[in-house]
Structures are given as structure tokens and as C-alpha cells.
């Protein structure tokens, strides 16, 4: 089995994986980082979004081998110690989560948007979240949270 090595949340991690092992399986099952979720098998729900080299990626559709040598950030790596990341803080402040299952993917996806656009309009946020399903919130508060989080980030993570 090939070995993959990547920097996950700032730490170098390696593992032996099969060629077909998905990045999300590597994160959840090999590294025990269960904050990244799996909600579907057709790349539709976005519960699995992580950052690979700074951009959001659906970890259910990329192979672990593809991330060999990459910088990977998962939801576990976003906060600075016990200080929540501004996007996490915004989700909390605006009640942008209920059951929390879509949340890691939503937050990671939102951070990527905010990195590109520090003041997204409601319309831009709604369009950006095309690949993230939430069944609980009706998106209303997620949209508010993403806008506030993007502002708080001030154009950088």
C-alpha cells in the first residue's frame, strides 16, 4: 500500500492507504479527525468540505493520494486554541447551525468564500453555497453568519 504524507492542521501526518482511499476516509478513519462528515455518495451535500492548499475541496471526491504533500485544513484546525475562528464565531453568534452535521463543511466552504470576497452579498453567499446542503436551518442564518464572518475576517483567514 502506498504511503501518503500531508500536513494536516499544521502537523505532518503519514499513513498507508489503498489507491482508492478517499481523503475523507484518511481523515476520519486513519487520523481520527471525525469533524469532517460524510452526508452523501454523489458529491452533492458538502458535509465533507476541507481545505487543500487553502481552497475548499470535497474530501469525499478526492483521493488521499491526491493530497500527498499538500497542506490540509479541517474544521478541527480552524480555531486558534480556544479562540474560535471569526467564521466559527459568526456561525455561533448568528445561530447558523442546528444539528451541526452540515456545519463543518459549511464553515470551511464559507472561509474559502471570505478569503476571496470580504463583503459578499446575500445573493453571492447563496450562490456560493450551491454545493452545501443543510436540512435544519433553512439557510437564513447561515447566510447571515457567512456575511458577518467574512466581514470579521476582513479579507483573510
Amino acid at each position, binding site marked *: 500500500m502506498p504511503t501518503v504524507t500531508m500536513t494536516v492542521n499544521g502537523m505532518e501526518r503519514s499513513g498507508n492507504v489503498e489507491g482508492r482511499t478517499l481523503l475523507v476516509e484518511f481523515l*476520519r478513519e486513519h487520523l481520527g*479527525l*471525525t*469533524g*469532517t*462528515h*460524510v*452526508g*452523501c*455518495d*454523489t458529491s*452533492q*451535500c458538502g*458535509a465533507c468540505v476541507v481545505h487543500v492548499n487553502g481552497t475548499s475541496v470535497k474530501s469525499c471526491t478526492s483521493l488521499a493520494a491526491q493530497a500527498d504533500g499538500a497542506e490540509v485544513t*479541517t*474544521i*478541527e484546525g*480552524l*480555531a486558534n486554541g480556544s479562540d*474560535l475562528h471569526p467564521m*466559527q464565531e459568526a*456561525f*455561533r*453568534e448568528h*445561530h447558523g*447551525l*442546528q*444539528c*451541526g*452535521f*452540515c*456545519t*463543518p463543511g459549511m*464553515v470551511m466552504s464559507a472561509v474559502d468564500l471570505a478569503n476571496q470576497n470580504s463583503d459578499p452579498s*446575500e445573493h453571492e*453567499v*447563496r*450562490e456560493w*453555497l*450551491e454545493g*452545501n*446542503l*443543510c*436540512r*435544519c*436551518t*433553512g*439557510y*437564513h*442564518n*447561515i*447566510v447571515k453568519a457567512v456575511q458577518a464572518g467574512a466581514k470579521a475576517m476582513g479579507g483573510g483567514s
Partner: protein
Amino acid sequence: MSANGSGIGASVKRKEDTRFLTGRGRYTDDINLPGQLYGYILRSPVAHADIGGIDTSAAAAAPGVHAIFTGSDMEGVGGIPTGWLIHSKDGEPMVEPGHPALALGKVRYVGDCVAIVVAETREQAKEAANLIDVDYQELPAVASIEAAEAEGAAQVFDEAPGNVCYDWEVGDRAATDAAFDEATHVVSIDVVNNRLIPNAIEPRAAIANYDPATGDYTLYTTSQNPHLIRLLLGAFVLGLPEHKLRIVAPDVGGGFGSKIPHYAEEAILTWTAGQLGRPVKWTCERIDAFKSDTHGRDHISTARLALDADGKFLGLHVSTKANLGAYLSTFATCVPTYLYGILFAGPYTTPAVYCEVKSFFTNTVPVDALRGAGRPEATYLLERLVEKAAVELGMDRVEIRRKNFIREFPYQTPVALQYDQGDYDATLDLALKASDWAGFEARRAESAARGKCRGIGISTFIEACGIAPSAVVGSLGARAGLYESGSVRVHPTGSVSVFTGTHSHGQGHETTFAQIVSDMLGVDFEAVDVVHGDSAKIPFGMGTYGSRSLAVGGTAIYLAVEKVIEKGKKIAAHLLEASVEDIEFENGSFTVAGTDRSKSLGEVALTAYVPHNYPEGLEPGLEETAFYDPLNFTFPAGTHVAEVEVDPETGEVEVVAVTGADDVGRIINPMIVDGQLHGGLAHGIGQALLEECLYQDDGQLQTGSYLDYTMPRAADLPSFNINHNTTLCTHNPLGVKGVGEVGSIGVPPAVINAVIDALRPLGVNDMAMPATSQKVWQAIQQAQG
């Protein structure tokens, strides 16, 4: 009750959020047990077949495989039970066929469980399952109500002729017929309530363990009601006593009704773990969730409304056919009956109401509760019919509703319910104002100038939540009580653990319940934690559904806190050398009335656990449990207004505004309440415009993935305009009613009424859900001839 910064009425930020936001939630699939094996459930690819034989030899020899079990292995195990016995019009009990956890001799829907393969890894289990050779001898299938009731239709069960499970009724038929005899106008409507797939974003999962040394079983499962699962799985399926069966529903990623039922997989996993003496884990893939999570709704109805010359409702007659799917799921039978037929008075004074419901078995996934469960179906029918009546009689659609509102409370409906309180005019007025109903024609003209058809729709509705006195539901066929337990443990140093039998899977109970307790006890919000979801920790519980958690579970907690205070008064009286009657409790202090002599709750708690100086005869400790059996349903009510813009060229419907004016009783946490409303509205708009579960005639699921089943996405929805007018529930001490289902109950008819309003100038007078662009475009083409 004092209003403090984190008490009742404050939008406190949620306790649960930090763990969810940092990836530290603990959902079932996040749990791994030492030595665990993985189970894969082989499902039927055909809708109806005799199983001629199952050859597992190749699979058993595959790498990593530990065991394979099929229906015959589990033959001695009880079937999956159903929770509610319905009686037909003629007094006969419903037909209640067996439901083996693993199919025995026959499969009855695509997705039916056929075998479990247990292997070292997930992949090995799945690959081995592909090697199982099942001899399916296909039979004709019935995949819809129409097919099930057709002459000569295939039989899902031999014991259910015509595929009928029951033929039920509620209300006074003769009185209703008499009302129609007197009527000046009769308006009728045919509606279909589309079949939906719940699609909580967390797929179901379970991990079962058996400890041969103690005989203890543990099942972690994605459930809304762990104690109910313990009852059904233990007492009915596996024959295990409660003290040997622990059910844990940890963090659960949404339920919406689909995680109420006791599923076959829970029984299969637990039994398999017992056979192997090792933990077995199973996680449903989304593709299997589509064909194995219970589905929702699926009604065909025809209804007539009798009116006098002034538009007063005289009588309502409803005939409904409901699809129950291939087996009777836990609450399947009561959803289209006692959660549906008894809603037909709505907010109106209609003196005579009659509803009959015939429910059918089909070769489809079992149908059970889905957000609203029965009440959205009733509300949709009623509000479409009332709207149609206004149009046919040439009346204003707001005035026809107002003319018929109930204004005297308590109000006894002709279909069994007694409404305790409400103010339907107030929510209507609020909604009209907040939606700028009066300014609509100007907006319509503005849209028309851009070539768009704009429409506005309204629905005024009630719901019945917090079901219901146990004795009442028992007399109607429920096989369980519907009370709730709450325990409050004040620790020696004054912090508090609260134990509730309800389950939070997004609703924020850990916050709301802590607010109530912190407020009542005068304890810091941070010093109160709420524990739920584990049958080993919580005395008992019926779980979370039907917007019951606060009204029933919250009340149990309230009563437990009152008991704590009562006991605390005895301890304080002793310490203060006063009589118990003179002790008052406020803001965390026990005070001798009229003096400044007091003891804090912390001092009293410490004394309770270090009882050196203590009242004679009083038990040490400061912990109380209350079981609360509700006195009545609660009746949230409201008005929803939807405004849509239709592109007549493409048929595309855009929801441009949604306004809710809701009376959900006392609000503990406004932020959470509004969030619940948003979620319900999105679900309701999804039903109205996007979502539809379709089967082919042969019982193959056509909408079996997110590529075929349209979930509402952020760009499909507007922001919501939420407003409140509160009347308090009169029969629980907090005055609370319930909020989780409001949106999905109230909004679908408002959306469809708006779509029809938009299209009426083009000659379109009817529209079925979901109003997809294709359907709307076709309707326009047809109307234009």
C-alpha cells in the same frame, strides 16, 4: 420567574455550538469500539419477489468475512412492531402483517433488508455482499395508491385484501351530510400530497456491542427517541430486559421524523453483535438511505366544503387515501389518522366535519412521520379548499378566513380536539401588515412590467402539538404513553445536571432547558448542563417529535425543579430555624419571609449532601424527578404569506418573500425559535416547489439520489420575515406550545396559493406540488390552448 441575561426570553447563544463548530461533535459514525467489525446490509433490488433461495457460500469465503446472516437465521426473533393500532369504521382492527427484520421468503420493496455481511472492513463487507446470490422470483408490484386499489392488483400481503390496512373515519357523517343539504354553495377540490424523502444530512448509522461477561447489550444509534427504541427492540424484537439493553443516541444530525422509527437495521445489528460477541458497526450510504429511511406524506384526497350564502362554512367532508408503504413503521398508522383527520376544523368554526381515510400497503419504502406528520397534509388540503371557495364565491380570500375564525376559547371542534387558547385575528393582522399585503397590486404591476407574473398566497392554520394525555391516546390505539420525564440533580457545590427523556438533534435543548432551570433556580446558566440521549443515564423518555419537547419535556423539568425548591425549603427552614411555610425562594435564595435571613441554593445543596445539621426524617441529597403527562395537545397557530414571481416563458417560480406570523406560545429562546421556523419554512417550500419522491410502476425508486431528488438549496430560498404574536398555552406552567413543525405545516398552501394567484390571469386555476418549472410551464401551455 425573573428575566435575566440568560433566562427565559433571552437569545442565549447555544451551549452545543462550540463542539459542533470545532468538529468535536460525537455522531454515531464517529464512534469506534475496540475490536469492532463492519456490517453491510444487502438490500432487495426488486420491489416484490419470492426468495427462492440465498447462496452465501462465495461471500462467506471472501476475504475478511466473519459471518453472514439471512432471514432464516433470525427466524426465531420477533418482528419489527408498530406503535399504534387503528380501528376501521366497522370496528375491526387494522391488518397488521409481520415485519421480519431480515426478509423471510419474500421481499416487499426495493431496499428491504435481505442479509447482513460482517467483515473486518467496510469495503470487505460490501464486496462480499455483492457475491451473495439471491434467487428473486419476481412478482407483480404495486408502487402507488392507484395501483394498490386497482381491480386485480398484486397483493403486498395475503392477509390484506385489496391492500387495505384500515378504513378509518372521524367526525359525524350524518351531521356533515345534513350541512351539505342546507348549503348555498359547495366547493370541492382534489389534491395530492406529494411523497417526500426526509433526507436528514446525517445518514443513519448504528454500532452494537454485546458483553458476554455481563450479558449487557449496547446500541449506539441515530435516533430521536432512544428509550422508545429500547422498549421496542428489547421487549418486542429481541426479548431483552431493559436493564440489559442500553441505547445511546449521541449527537444526531437531524431527524425530521425519519429517526423516530425503530428500524430493522437496529435489530439486525444488535442481534448480530450478540451472535458474534463483538461490536458491529453499520453506516448507511446515502444511496441506501433514499430507499430505507422512512418516507413521508403520499396522500390522494378529495374534499368538499359547504357554505351558506355569506361564505360561512357549514360543513367539510374529506376522503383521503394514504400510502403506508410495504410494512407498518412505528407511527405509520396514526400519522394519516389521529395526526391528520382531527386537524380539519383548522382555525374555523365549521360546525360539522367528517374525514375518512383508507390506508394502503404498497411495494414502496415504509411511510412514517415527516416534519409536521399529518398536520401539513390536513393544512394543505384545507387552505387550498378555503382559497378556492373564496375565488368561486367571489369573496376576498382574507375576509373568508376572518369570517370563519374561532374567537371563543376553549373551543371544542367537531373532530375531537379542544383548543385552549388562540388569537387568529392577531396573527392574521400581523402577517398582512408585515407582508405589506395591501401594497401587493403595485408589486404585481411592477413584475408585469418586467414580463413576470407575480402572485401572493396566504394560509391561516393551527397545529396540534405536544401529543397528548396518555389515557386519551391509549383509548385511540397508541401502544405507549406520551408523557415525559425530567430529572434535576443539584450537586453538592450548587451546579446542576438536568436529565431529559427528550432528544436534541438540532433543536438546542441543551440551551433552552438550561435557560429554564437557570432561571427558576437562580443558578448561573453556565452551571447547568443538560443530559439526553442515553437510556443508562436518563430514567425514561419518549423522545422528540411532534413539537413535544418543550411542552411536555420542558414541563417535566419545570415540575422537577419545583420539587427541588420544595425540598430546599425544608432544608433552609431547618437551617434558618423558621417554619417551612415562611420560606420564600427567589433568585437562588431561600429567605424567611419579611426578613433578610436567607440561605443560598448552594448552601442548601451542600447541607443536603453533608447532612450534619439536617431536618429529622428528610432524605439527604437534592435531586428530583418528575414525569409529566400532558393535559391536552398544545395549539400553535399562525398565518403564513408567500409571494412568488413566475417566469411565464420558462415556468420557473421564484419565492420572493415569505412572511410568518406565528403564535407558538411562550418563547424561551427567540433565536432558537426563529431558527426552527426558518428550517420548517425551507422544508415546506421544498415540498411545495421542489421535492418529490417518484417510483416507477415496477416499484423501482426513480428519485434515489441527490441528482434526482431536489433538495432546497440556499439559492432556492429567500430570507424569511418572521413575526410573533403570543398567547400562552393554558394547561402547562410555562405556557409553551411548540415550534419545530410550524413552517412545514403552514407554508406549503401559501406557496401554492401564490403560484395559482400568479397564474390565474393566464387561465391556470390549479397546481399540484411540487410546482416545478416543467409543471408550471405545461399548465400555462395547456391553459393558453
